[in-house]
């Protein structure tokens, strides 16, 4: 961990690992997640890969409380958050950036950002400084702070959603397809940002991606899901080198 990372994680408490143990979740009769166990190292990037319907999005939803897990544990550091509501889980330090449609288009850019700070109390000056920090990180947002979020481009919306998640002061960031629908150049910027957040700010990142090649290029560790179960879990480099696995599950 770099010096900056140590400093940042000190500000956020500590960099925390996320352990998922035997998580079962689904929708009605359908079991979408059938006993998933994985470990996301503190301040690392864990890529969650697999085909459509493999259970990647359900995994993030069950971790953040959007759906209630039927069984299993979700340990943030040593705190089991499984079964809590989303508003409690974000307070515990897990921020979830859902796939697509993550901004509230009827609100301004700045209002969208202020929503990100609803999980903690703080003086007006502290809050203003926190927002300025995100404007410094995402300069295009600073120029449009009074504009409605509906006027933003796809890339800017993705920035806004990530900035809002960061404003909740998370220790773990769950990203669902952050590069979906973005131009290749913007996609590369988003991936660079993800690396920066983990390396420099000590954030633990769980990255769900359809673009397996791109995700494994920046991840430390990779987990492959199929039909709600873990079929492979290894170093990102090992997974990327496994021709059979790539062929069967990752499509590259």
């Amino acid at each position, binding site marked *: 961990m770099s010096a900056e990372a140590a400093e940042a994680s000190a500000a956020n408490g500590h960099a925390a690992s996320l352990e998922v143990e035997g998580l079962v979740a689904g929708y009605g009769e359908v079991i979408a997640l059938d006993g998933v166990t994985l470990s996301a190292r503190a301040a690392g990037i864990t890529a969650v890969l697999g085909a459509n319907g493999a259970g990647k999005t359900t995994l993030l939803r069950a971790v*953040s409380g*959007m759906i209630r897990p039927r069984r299993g544990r979700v340990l943030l550091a040593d705190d089991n958050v499984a079964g809590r*509501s*989303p*508003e409690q889980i*974000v*307070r515990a330090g897990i*921020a*979830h950036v*859902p796939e697509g449609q*993550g901004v*509230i288009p*009827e*609100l301004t850019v700045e*209002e969208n950002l*202020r*929503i*990100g700070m*609803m*999980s*903690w109390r703080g003086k007006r000056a502290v809050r203003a400084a926190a927002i300025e920090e995100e404007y410094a990180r995402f300069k295009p947002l600073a120029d449009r702070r009074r504009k409605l979020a509906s006027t933003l481009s796809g890339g800017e919306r993705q920035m806004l959603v990530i900035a*809002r998640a960061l404003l*909740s002061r998370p220790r773990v960031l769950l990203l669902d397809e952050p590069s979906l629908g973005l131009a290749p150049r913007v996609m590369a910027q988003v991936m660079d940002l993800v690396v920066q957040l983990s390396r420099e700010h000590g954030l633990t990142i769980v990255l769900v991606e359809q673009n397996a090649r791109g995700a494994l290029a920046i991840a430390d560790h990779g987990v492959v899901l199929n039909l709600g179960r873990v079929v492979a879990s290894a170093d990102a480099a090992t997974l990327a080198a496994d021709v059979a696995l790539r062929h069967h599950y990752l499509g590259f």
Partner: protein
Amino acid sequence: MVEFLQFTLSGIVFGMIYAAIALSLVLIWRGTRLLNFAQGGMAMFTTYVGIEVIYKTHSYWAGFVIALAAGLVLGAVCELTVVRPTTGKPPLNAVIVTIGLLILLEGLAGIFFGGQYRSFPAAFSIIGLRVGGTPIGVSRFDVFVAVAVLIATLALAAAFRYTAAGLRMRAAAFNATIARLSGIRVARVLTVGWALAGLLGALAGVLVSPSTFLYPNSMDAIFVYGFTAAVIGGLDSAVGAVVGGLILGVVLSYAGGYVGGSVGSDLTSLVALGILVAVLMIRPDGLFAGARMRRV
């Protein structure tokens, strides 16, 4: 010309009351996509609380303030006890629950306060004001009615726009999932929305009752007009609710005033229906509905 001015001004006064009811319906609709059929009943009940306090204390303002406070409390209690259990169930469940709540409140009012017509005092003189000897169709109390609703509306609008609590309510209304993922306690926000709706209803009840008498069903017609105003405005829009209320108030005032007699007063509900049908034919989502279609 004088008549026209009189009808317009008194129409605006009644329109403001419809607007208050419409706003209270919009508040709940935006948060939960639920039409609160008990809104009129809640307003009636809290108005009874107000009149009892006025009789006990001989102070209009004590009754006024306590009626509004009772509206806040009743709104929150209704949400927590009756509406909350319908969360996640088919939308019709909540609708039926609010209709049941209306019947319950009207029954309880009959038991506690009696079924007879009671006159509700006005805060100010109800004798028509004159300008240069010509009556202008409104009294001091009517002016108070319009100003009170205006202040409540502006205060609400400012709170929604400029406070953190207002932002939480807007975020929860636009996208409850994102709001919850950001740490907003959406369930609590909905309770606050119902409380505010209860307060607006109580205000409307206290303001309209000097003109209508108070009895367990006295708010039924006001509710229907408030609902009509909300639909004209688009159900989603606070501005629409106020404009819808004013349009309805003024047009009904012309209908009742120019036609006159019992025909005129019977005509008003027909005219209200006519306006509703006309608006919905031209703009099916109401005058101020957003361009974007919403999933209901």
